[in-house]
């Protein structure tokens, strides 16, 4: 069974390298969405909760598993939703609009 752990360690090591490479390129402008987005991604532990609740055979394992599914689902849903909301706010002003805004402002005052 410890072979699973060994395989996991391999995959874990490779994923860390990949993660560092990819995340290094995220500009600091997006660090808050990065944090809340990755925060939602670790909600994947919900899958672990589903599996342990699925095979729970005593009432207290069902209670543990149920709480874990609830908190895991809250982590996933809330994390992704707030990240999406945040990223929806990041807008670049279209160049043409900016110019006409400036023009209007200049004449008006």
């Amino acid at each position, binding site marked *: 069974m410890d072979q699973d752990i060994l395989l996991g360690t391999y995959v874990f090591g490779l994923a860390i390298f990949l*993660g560092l490479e990819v995340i290094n390129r995220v500009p600091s402008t997006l*660090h808050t969405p990065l944090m809340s987005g990755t*925060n939602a991604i*670790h909600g*994947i532990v*919900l899958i672990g909760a589903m599996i342990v609740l699925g095979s729970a055979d005593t009432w207290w394992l069902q209670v543990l598993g149920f709480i*874990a599914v609830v908190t895991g689902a*809250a*982590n996933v849903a809330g994390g992704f939703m707030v990240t999406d909301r945040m990223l929806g706010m990041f*807008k670049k002003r279209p160049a043409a609009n900016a110019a006409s805004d400036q023009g209007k402002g200049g004449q008006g005052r």
Partner: protein
Amino acid sequence: MIEDGRTAIVDLSYLVASALFIVGLKQLSSPATARRGNQLSILGMAIAIVATFLLPEIEGDNLVLIVVGIVIGTAIGIVPARQVKMTAMPQLVAAFNGMGGITAALVSISEFSQKSEVGRGEGLSIVLGTLIGAVSFTGSAVAFLKLQERISGRPIVFPRQQLYNAGIFAAIGLLGLLVIVLQDGNFARSLLVLLFLASLALGTLLVLPIGGADMPVVIALLNSATGLAAALTGFVLGNQALVIAGALVGASGTLLTMLMAKAMNRSVTNVIFGAFGAIAPGAAGAAGGGEAKPIREISVEDAAVPLAYAQRVIIVPGYGLAVAQAQHAVRELADLLEGRGVDVRYAIHPVAGRMPGHMNVLLAEANVSYDRLYEMERINDDFARTDVALVIGANDVTNPAAREDTASPIYGMPILNVDQAASVIVLKRSMKSGFAGIENELFHNENTSMLFGDAKESIDRLIGAVKAA
């Protein structure tokens, strides 16, 4: 045979989900593609969750429990996510992080209870998953309370605290060792629950002594801890989706932690255990406060004139802007100035605000175009060619002592070269010092004027005065 086929489909779905997470994170490298990136991650998560229902372990009564749990959890998560103000983002991230942490700990405990003859590697993963998940849960909870100002943001220390921490840590080590050696049975399960409780206490005690201003580092660190805990549960379940996603989060949290610590010119150890050492900044601050240095106060009208007739203005936002909810007023002022042909840009210090990138989100909320927001390295040389630098609720990150005064506690911390602008207008509530508790030389420079008052009110009045100018 049929079960094998189903398991293969599930495993392949996990691979697709992991790939989507990675592509999603990659698209976060530009604001233009970032939202789609996050949506790819959502798709990946949905695929992983749906695929999990195909597993043979999931059946019968428990299937109903799972569905009900997911529905309830989703509702709990979505309500605050839709309503939260951008100022309160750090608290929300802390709250969700804590939920992930407790999930990982509970999954680890369940894993142990469901297995017999747990191997050494599995035992170690279970113990660490429980420990890290629980520490992340209570640590995030304390961080949440501090950020929400339900408890004091000041470091909370009591006598012999470190001794208690060391004692709890030793107890956790001993319990963990016993759990791993015993492998299974009710006694070992009880010990694991004890270890869980001790870890909850440890998480609380570790974060209580850390000051509110250091919470961004703490959240980044706990984020990476929860990622690690999730990966550990994946080791035991032999579930590579958990391992990969957990590792990605761990990497991101670690990078952000180091980046923040570097921007404050402090080590991560100093941030976490700093409250226990003799605090140098306090002493230096007292020395500096001895002599009253002159400052120049300015009226709104006098501040409006140089702004209105400037060619280049750089706005330097800090946490004071967030506290006063002044982001919309600032955007309005900037629009007004741009309408008069002034070039307005924003200089963002990496540790401005309560989490990395916090200022950018606040300004994005106020519809400031993201190409106007400049990172410190990209704009620092331009201050010398700037007519007016408008500092709004930022303090330590503008202190020239960090550049010049080797005796200063913040010496060596990268700062914004605000003092090099032709004139500097500082919006501030009072002469109170910043987080580091030291005098800011900038306020006493002869090209600096101070405009005291609530940031939002001051800016609203500035808008009126610029219109009149």
